């Protein structure tokens, strides 16, 4: 198209983490020509950070496990706000998706009889996580990456960022973006678009997420008219590093607790036994000895309270800190070294089971985790909410626009279980790619949409370049930091009406500031310019989080209101929806839950 470097695909996939790669492979398998746009280099996406494993009811370690148990665990973890059809599909299809990775070269750890080994994780009744030490994400992304590079139908655009989606009428017909190296604009014509852009961690100050996690997919979809769902549910992982300051937020895998790690306060008390929620009492050990046996594979033992859901563990840690029983840098202690009381060669065992954690603490904090406890505290980790999608096809409320992985909503409800994100991106990445390719095959030709695309691209280009034309203005990094501080302090783990209103007012003010940021230099590989462009999406997701959180006047899953500390099934059983209204302002509505079919209801009753 005149003026812009133009590429034409059947399916444009935005994001090349696990979900995007899996979607691209699936779309290509359907015969579609696929463009794969990724913000960084291929293979660097945030999926590499996933440590624990991929949850799939293979039943290799405990043959009592099957998709029904996995389904019930996922629904319970999500406080029953989950899209039950997604939870059902996910539990049913995850085993096949994990086995498929093995056929593509992934090497998971093994059981004694040579099958895929599975590990315990919070909220999963049986050992369920296929894993590779504590670097499962790297193994998965490399397997998908190495599988996709031989697929001639997939063209990869590395270090390319989408600025806007292009529409014709109400359907999506492509995207407009820029490549970082030279800063040139690119126009992608595509019959279908799959968003797989991950989460929103960079809206918060303390996060385990990388710089890329700026809610791009959510912002793009919202601006294209799509609905966002369950935005109040932000997961804070209970164990992030807290010292030194430069690594604050960096993830410490739940696998540490799965291998027997325990949480202690400054008085040396194992405080997690103090408060076990009623919903989980029958599944949780009531003494340390039983908990230890569980981590060592005793099928008759119940899990230790350290392996309760993440929202609960994070709040318990905050409670200890607020009560003055925290560690010197404002967290608590996570101790795996103690297992030397139980195991011979404990140090070697820890290094083999948790090699990255050993390495990370040794190198970044001078702590030897085989000898000393780790200082940890909660870190913003995952976004349960996101783009509202159809369970089967992953299509959003905008025709031609699909979403998969963390940027989509529904599977996890009010809280995600560890291990369910890696299986999520495989199952729904695959579905999104397949259905997008099918949609593209039946979609009308793009030629009729070219004039619309050109006009929208011109508009987007003009807006994108505006920060260069402002000679005197605030820097983009300052606005981003102010937003992170605002959200951390007012929309974090424990929320109140007043704080959330402060957040909303602050966001409005920051939006005005963002409109006046100025950047130096030229367009080639300019991080200042990039940050200026990210602000728009960050502000949309921050506003959506605060809006949905103000409205939910109860505590459920990851959303905890100090002013409404109890769960309220009378008014809380709904999914919150935000979308851009006709006047441009964000609009909120409650969507009642869809009634669950009797057979699924029965599974939940049986597993209680």
């Amino acid at each position, binding site marked *: 198209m005149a003026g812009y470097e133009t590429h034409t695909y059947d399916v444009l996939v935005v994001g090349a983490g696990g979900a995007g790669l899996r979607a691209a492979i699936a779309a290509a398998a359907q015969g579609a020509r696929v463009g794969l746009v990724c913000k*960084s*280099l*291929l*293979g*660097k*996406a*945030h999926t*590499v*950070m996933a440590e624990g494993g991929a949850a799939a009811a293979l039943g290799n370690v405990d043959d009592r496990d099957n998709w029904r148990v996995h389904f019930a665990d996922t629904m319970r973890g999500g406080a029953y706000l989950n899209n039950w059809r997604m939870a059902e599909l996910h539990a049913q299809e995850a085993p096949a998706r994990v*086995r498929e990775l*093995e*056929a*593509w*070269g992934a*090497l998971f*750890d*093994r059981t004694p*009889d*040579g*099958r*895929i080994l599975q590990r315990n994780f919070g909220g999963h009744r049986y050992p369920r996580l296929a894993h*590779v*030490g504590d*670097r499962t994400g*790297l193994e998965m992304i*490399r397997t998908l990456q*190495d*599988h996709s*590079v*031989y697929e001639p139908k997939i063209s990869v655009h590395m270090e390319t960022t989408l600025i806007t989606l292009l529409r014709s009428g109400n359907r999506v017909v492509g995207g407009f973006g820029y490549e970082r*190296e030279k800063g040139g604009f690119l126009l992608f014509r595509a019959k279908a678009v799959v968003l797989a852009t991950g989460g929103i961690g960079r809206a918060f100050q303390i996060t385990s997420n*990388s*710089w*890329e996690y700026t809610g791009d997919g959510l912002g793009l979809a919202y601006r294209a008219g799509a609905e966002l769902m369950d935005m109040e549910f932000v997961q804070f992982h209970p164990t992030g590093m807290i*010292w*030194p*300051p*430069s*690594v604050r937020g*960096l*993830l410490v895998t739940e696998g540490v607790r799965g291998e027997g790690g325990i949480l202690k306060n400054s008085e040396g008390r194992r405080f997690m036994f103090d408060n076990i929620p009623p919903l989980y009492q029958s599944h949780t050990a009531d003494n340390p000895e039983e908990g230890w046996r569980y981590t060592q594979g005793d099928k008759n033992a119940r899990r230790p309270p350290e392996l309760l859901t993440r929202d609960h563990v994070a709040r318990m840690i905050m409670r200890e800190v607020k009560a003055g029983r925290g560690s010197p840098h404002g967290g608590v202690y996570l101790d795996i070294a103690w297992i030397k009381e139980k195991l011979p060669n404990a140090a070697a065992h820890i290094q083999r089971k948790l090699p990255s954690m050993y*390495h*990370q603490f040794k*190198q*970044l*904090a001078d702590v030897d985790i085989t000898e000393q406890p780790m200082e940890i505290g909660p870190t913003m980790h995952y976004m349960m909410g996101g783009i509202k999608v159809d369970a089967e096809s992953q299509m959003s409320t905008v025709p031609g626009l699909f979403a998969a992985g963390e940027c989509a909503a529904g599977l996890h409800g009010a809280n995600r279980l560890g291990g369910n994100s890696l299986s999520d991106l495989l199952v729904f990445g695959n579905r999104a790619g397949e259905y997008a390719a099918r949609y593209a095959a039946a979609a009308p030709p793009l030629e009729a949409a070219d004039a619309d695309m050109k006009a929208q691209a011109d508009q987007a280009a003009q807006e994108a370049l505006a920060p260069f034309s402002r000679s005197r203005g605030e*820097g*983009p*990094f*300052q606005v981003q*930091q102010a937003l992170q501080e605002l959200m951390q302090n007012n929309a974090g783990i424990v929320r109140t009406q007043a704080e959330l209103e402060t957040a909303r007012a602050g966001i409005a003010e920051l939006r005005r500031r963002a409109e006046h940021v100025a*950047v*130096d*230099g030229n367009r*080639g*590989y*300019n*991080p*200042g*310019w990039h940050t200026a462009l990210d602000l728009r999406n960050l502000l949309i997701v921050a506003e959506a989080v605060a809006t949905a959180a103000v409205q939910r006047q109860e505590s459920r899953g990851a959303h905890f209101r100090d002013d409404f500390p109890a769960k309220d099934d009378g008014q809380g059983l709904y999914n919150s929806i935000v979308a851009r209204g006709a006047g441009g302002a964000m609009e909120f509505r409650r969507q009642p839950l869809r009634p669950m079919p009797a057979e699924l209801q029965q599974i939940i009753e049986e597993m209680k």
Partner: protein
Amino acid sequence: MAQAMFRIWRGDARGGGFQDFTVQISDGMVVLDVVHQIQAEQANDLAVRWNCKAGKCGSCSAEINGHPKLMCMTRLSSLPLDRPVTVEPMRTFPLVRDLVTDVSWNYEVKKRIKPFQPRTPDAADGTWRMDQRDVDRVQEFRKCIECFLCQDVCHVLREHQLHREYIGPRFYVHTAALEMHPLDVANRLADLRGPGGLGYCNITKCCTKVCPEGIKITDNAIIPLKERVVDEFYDPVRRLFRIFRPKPQPPPAKGAPEAEPEPTRTAASSSAPR
């Protein structure tokens, strides 16, 4: 709060030079923190490539005081701060801007390596059985985060610029992971000896020294691959067997190609793609 001086390379393919920045430093900081601080406060457009800031993605490779390292894993406490700390882009790859280089050559090389090819599944349900010990042997190679520091430091690429006839340590590790994969049945030895340029590596172990994942690249990947190539192509008994074999057989799936004399190579005869 203490101060330190950082001397950071700035420029693009047309040219550039070092620029000095004075920064405030605090406990536990790494070099990438300093670069971010400069970016936020002094030079918004300072180009740097990074993602995870945890040594897991392999994006922030650079040369710090002349040593190839990940910026996110290099703590200031490990550097002498009484003199300026220099930070430069990797030299082996074409410069994009400031600390960012064009590493796309690596992605092209990978496409030329024969993909994973598993044996027929072991069980009726289409799955395989593997021993943990066999898996463990390959896991070392699969830890690779593709930071390309081994490629940066390898003299065959860095000094001799043999990018066209040599794939470099990263892809010997990749090939070793495939060749030693318990399920893989493809044979990559002829490719290693020919277009892979394995003969150029003279096992100086520079790659092993810079690997942030501690992979013993030379000892565990390159040398075993060299041994396999020698066994396959230069074993005198096999050679005799090939000479006296009645007539050439069609190569079996895992068979050896016809023996060829070792081609003579000179470093000067090639040119780099940059």
